[in-house]
């Protein structure tokens, strides 16, 4: 499904740390985290981290998605009511 165009017409809700976040259908979970302004994870020393490479290489966008930890959120398309938990 292409997400390059046609935005603004079909929002869905996902849950980020139990808080509803609205994104356009077809958006990735990484986008949901950025829109929510919530860091995907904390580093080993506790600093906030968010997506860097956008293509599944850097592993900085990892979060727990529907109970699977270390999920690369930039590679996962949001589904309605998906449960995302930051790591």
């Amino acid at each position: 499904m292409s997400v390059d165009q046609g935005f603004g017409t079909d929002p869905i809700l996902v849950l980020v740390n139990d808080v509803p976040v609205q994104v356009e259908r077809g958006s990735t979970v990484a986008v949901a985290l950025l829109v929510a302004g919530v860091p995907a994870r904390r580093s080993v020393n506790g600093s906030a981290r968010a997506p860097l490479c956008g293509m599944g290489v850097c592993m900085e966008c990892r979060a727990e998605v529907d109970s699977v930890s270390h999920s690369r959120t930039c590679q996962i398309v949001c589904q309605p009511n998906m449960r995302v938990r930051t790591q």
Partner: protein
Amino acid sequence: MNHRFDVLVVGAGPAGIAAAVRAAEEGCSVGIVDENLQAGGQIWRGSVDRARSGQGIGSAEDWLGRLERASLRAFYGWHIFDAPSPKMLRASRDFEAAELHFESLVIATGARERFLPFPGWTLPNVVGAGGLQALVKSGLPIGGKRVVVAGTGPLLIAVAAYMRKRGANVVALCEQASRGRIMKLGMGLTRQPKKLTDAVRYGWQVRGMRLRTNCWPIAALGEERLESVVLGGGGKRVEVKTDYLACGFHLVPNCELAMLLGCALDGSYVRVDESQQTSVPGVFSAGETTGIGGVEAALVEGQIAGLAAGGAREKAALLLKEREATRQFIRLLDRTYALNPELRRLATPETIVCRCEDVTMEAVEAHTSWRTAKLQLRVGMGSCQGRICGAACEFLFGWGMESVRPPIQPTPIGSLIGSDAD
């Protein structure tokens, strides 16, 4: 799950698509694998439904259409993690596993951005240049946001233009290469008509926006996320408020699969002959893995590889002249975007070098080789398997990368077992 193909193509960016299409059109049974959920790779991301048409060899829409019409089997969302026996690769998607058998293999695994450490580079909203483009294409609203685009490489102008088109306020566009080298590139482009029109088109789109050369990020500032960027170079310094910093330092080829299979490298690229064959018989490679050259090179090389792998070497030979032109372009890009040694001095002792394991510059530079640093500090031993910090350390310290071990991507334990037919 077991599958068998005459030609297996790994990577569904332009090179992989071209290879798969040509091999399929020759009548071969073809499989194509990509860890993304759609074909297109990076540069044609999101273009499956709508792509811009162009001239010359072909356009995204053209090739993606041919891909859709071709008789082949696609595996989207699958990543390759092992090559346990000749003529077979192991792939995984979520918790599933598959064995992909082949007569010939085309490695078109593309490239990733090079990131260099500087103070604040780990702040949320500091992303790659291609990284920001990928995120916007994946739904990130950018309209009205302030963006600084920095680093080096042909991506920067393309990204700045794209952000503008999507309504962002590109407040600065900074290229670390010198003005002289950028101008030389411009002249080099005029020898290749299609690229001239691209350059003109991008120039028009970034009209009114200055390309600062000899300029790079000194520091990213902010508390919980990015708030401003300090830009420097050439003795100048300026702080710019911004929402995003899109910063990448050109591209490095993804050679892990090629290395796992024992393909010889020339520097950081996979060594290939004129039919894109690697040093391993039956294994071909095309696209950024054999030299960073963008879409044109990828399409030429991909076609050659697909034809050669599919047993149609005479047809492949017809593309040799175009291949030579793209090889020249690759060399031109490498020269243009070579990194300024000043960039080695951006990181302070406290700057994080290995993001997965939070290893600082101070800790890393106390070591004399990648091997001891890995063993004692765990730099490069985290989730990204050294992809980000490895490329940085190669530039910072001249440390060569070692051989590659499976799994070449993080893979669920259950998928490692393989199928019952093992």
